[in-house]
């Protein structure tokens, strides 16, 4: 917990990954302490034992470090550190891979960084600033982008962070293990109020979380908001979900997660980055069988809005059904062959949490 501890040597561990990070840390502390003390002991011991004695003639023994003994020493003190460091390498990689890859059943939350605040959107439509409410014991995947410079979403109690980049989506995931409040820090220097770009994760019981989500304001789910934006921007005039109007634009049903064949012969996986690129830079990847017809929507849509559009496209069905099955709130478009039933509990928006008050 973050409140009122004036002195601590070790941070709170509140995620499933924290224990394994702490384990590797402990191993490295032990190895480092051993070698630091060994070197310190040798240096102090030799400095005393072989100290210069005034009046006593010093006769150096002829040095032959190419002798068998010398070579053996060099091999030993090259080999042991090499072996130990390979253990550290493998251990570090294995933790990294579990940190870097969100489990398939994660609930999704969207994060937009901006000088100097964190904007958070939940699938169900709840929005908050500098606060993140999540349920305990569930895998949470953050999909993050920045409106301006590079930020970094860091939760020390969860032992994880990831850079938040403009023009790109990065992900971060965790499963909280303890109900409580924990710091969010921006860890990549981002300008004047970098140290004010902090917030709080509220880890709640599932019941409390449901209550929190339920106190909604009725803006609709992210996908519903995305659909509104979709209509407002006139996307549906070409990307009709009913039929391929006159074959001008690809159908978006079942697009997310599928492999898209391109006009130039290549192919691309339809992920968040591809959808974003296709809206902002439609010329860069033309779908096979279509022409360079779509205008750019650069400047007409915010990063937050883009995330809503992506969520809408996802709600039109995904090739890989597991991607957002846990929490998605698909919109009943009536024509989506793969649209799933709404999850229990009406998707609702929670009130936007505190304004960026902590942003000093």
């Amino acid at each position, binding site marked *: 917990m973050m409140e009122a501890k004036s002195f601590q040597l070790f941070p709170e561990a509140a995620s499933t990954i924290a224990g394994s990070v702490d384990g590797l840390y402990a191993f490295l502390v032990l190895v480092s302490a051993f070698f630091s003390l060994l070197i310190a002991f040798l240096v102090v011991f030799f400095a005393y034992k072989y100290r210069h004695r005034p009046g006593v003639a010093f006769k150096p023994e002829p040095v032959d470090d190419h002798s068998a003994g010398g070579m053996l020493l060099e091999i030993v003190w090259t080999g042991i550190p090499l072996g130990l460091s390979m253990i550290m390498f493998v251990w570090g990689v294995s933790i990294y891979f579990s940190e870097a890859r969100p489990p398939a059943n994660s609930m999704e939350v969207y994060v937009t960084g901006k000088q100097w605040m964190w904007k958070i959107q939940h699938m169900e439509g709840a929005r908050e600033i500098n606060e993140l409410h999540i349920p305990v014991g569930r895998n949470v995947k953050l999909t993050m982008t920045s409106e301006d410079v590079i930020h970094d979403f860091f939760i020390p109690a969860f032992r994880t962070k990831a850079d938040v980049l403009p023009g*790109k989506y*990065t992900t971060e995931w965790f499963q909280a293990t303890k109900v409580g409040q924990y710091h969010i820090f921006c860890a990549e*220097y981002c300008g004047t109020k970098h140290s*004010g770009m902090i917030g709080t994760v509220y880890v709640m019981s599932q019941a409390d979380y449901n209550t929190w989500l339920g106190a909604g304001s009725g803006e609709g789910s992210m996908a519903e908001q995305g659909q509104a934006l979709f209509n407002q921007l006139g996307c549906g005039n070409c990307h009709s979900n009913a039929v391929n109007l006159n074959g001008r634009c690809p159908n978006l049903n079942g697009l997310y997660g599928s492999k898209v064949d391109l006009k130039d012969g290549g192919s691309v996986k339809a992920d968040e980055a591809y959808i974003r690129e296709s809206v902002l830079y439609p010329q860069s990847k033309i779908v096979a069988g279509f022409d360079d017809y779509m205008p750019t929507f650069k400047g007409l849509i915010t990063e937050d809005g883009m995330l809503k559009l992506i969520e809408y496209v996802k709600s039109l069905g995904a090739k890989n059904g597991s991607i957002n099955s846990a929490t998605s709130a698909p919109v009943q478009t009536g024509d989506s062959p793969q649209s799933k039933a709404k999850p229990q509990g009406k998707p609702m928006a929670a009130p936007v949490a505190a304004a960026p008050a902590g942003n000093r």
Partner: protein
Amino acid sequence: MITATATEKETKNYLNAEHGLKSWLLTQDHKRIAILYLIAVSVFFMVGGLMAVLIRLELATPAGDLLDSNTYNKVFTMHGVVMIFFFLIPSIPAILGNFLLPLMIGAKDLAFPRINLLSWYVYMLGGLFGVFVLITGGVDTGWTFYTPFSTTYSNGYVVMTAMAAFINGFSSILTGLNFIVTVHRMRAPGLTWFRLPLFVWAHYATSVIMILGTPVIAVTLFLLMLERGLHIGFFDPAYGGDPVLFQHLFWFYSHPAVYIMILPSMGVVSEVISTFCSKKPFGYTFIAFSSLAIAVFGFLVWGHHLYVSSQSAYAGMVFSILSYIVAIPSAVKVFNWAATMYKGNVRLETPMLYALGFIGLFTIGGLTGLFLAAMGLDVHLTDTYFVVAHFHYVMVGGAVMGYLAGLHFWWPKMFGRMYPQAWSKIAAGLTFVGFNLTFFPQFILGYLGMPRRYHVYPPEFQVFNVLSSAGASILGLGFLIPGIYFFWSLKNGEPAGPNPWGATGLEWQTASPPPTENFPITPVVTAEAYDYTEILSANAKEVTHVG
């Protein structure tokens, strides 16, 4: 400059060979150019140190009560820029390397004396740009200049600061070029490669990094200036660029630059430990080749700065394993230094105290690098105070302790005078204690999660910050005292004589201070390096493997 005392006969040396400002500003003598660098680098060290004082004062309390956020950001940026580009990188090579390299190989000067003088003027020009930025309002990008913050969003003189570092880079390149040619072409007769002092090996390896790495940072900073000034898109996605590309280019130089700072220190420490143990360094060839190994592998590890920057996990794995491999030669050196003391004639004179301090602090600095190379752990640690503590252990605990060891070791050679031994030992002790008190708490702060570059921080981090600030005041004293007694010694120190420490290198076989031409007769080398038998038997008389 220095005049001889009444008891001493006036002998011509490089200091009194000519007089007047012009004789210094237009000199081509590598020793005088080294003194010019010493003065300029010391001034920059004081500027950077003043910034550090402001940082530690501000961080003594969690609130931002001394400086406002913009000023704080400018202060830590200038601290980094000045200390890295204008102090650490030139300190040992341009001062001690410049002074000693020709002396150590029995040459009269570097291969290109005019280029050597040019390098100082280029350095000063870069420095003037830096000073201009400092006076006119500063810059708030951090010394890393990350895009698109630096190119699009920063307040302050980004282009001028980048220009300062850009120009300064050419001074590094010129120095590196000069050293490489000098070592290849100008060794005294009989001075084969494996008779070279380890200081020379270390500077050779450093020079290779300087001439291969520095052009990359020059190009990178140039692209940065183009994007900032002319909005040509390389790094900002708003112009179609890639912000992570900048990080790759930046660290391709800036990681090897760490070895530019630390390798010369390792060279100094090898000399000092050998001398004060009266023993050839254990594993001479291993130490020599480990310098080259570090220079080569140091170029292949830059991606370990980018584990959380959206870099591919597989690329990260390659960088991680190479980072572990580059750590091995450093470990080999530390073990060899310790082994050199075994059955040695250990004298704890001031340079030796600094060198032993170096071993302790560099060991901790190196070992904590292993934490940051471990991918899964680095995700938690990167961009926290753990990183700040780690690189200060390497750069201050390593590079600066080595620099001070070298300055105390060769000061009698450079100026012909001794400094007060008691004071210098006190200063060495204060530096070691103050350093640890300043930076060790920052490891704990980092693991607790305190991000770096935070002007304001949550109150639970205050205890360790107060410890750190307290340590910094001791460390500051440790740096101040040598400044005073070095200055004092110029006129008042005991005459040193040619070889006050009983050392073996060629530089100790000429007068202190050396004559302009270094050696009256070109020496001929007939023995291995670090052969102490004659020195020990002749008890510090002039030695004879000089023909």
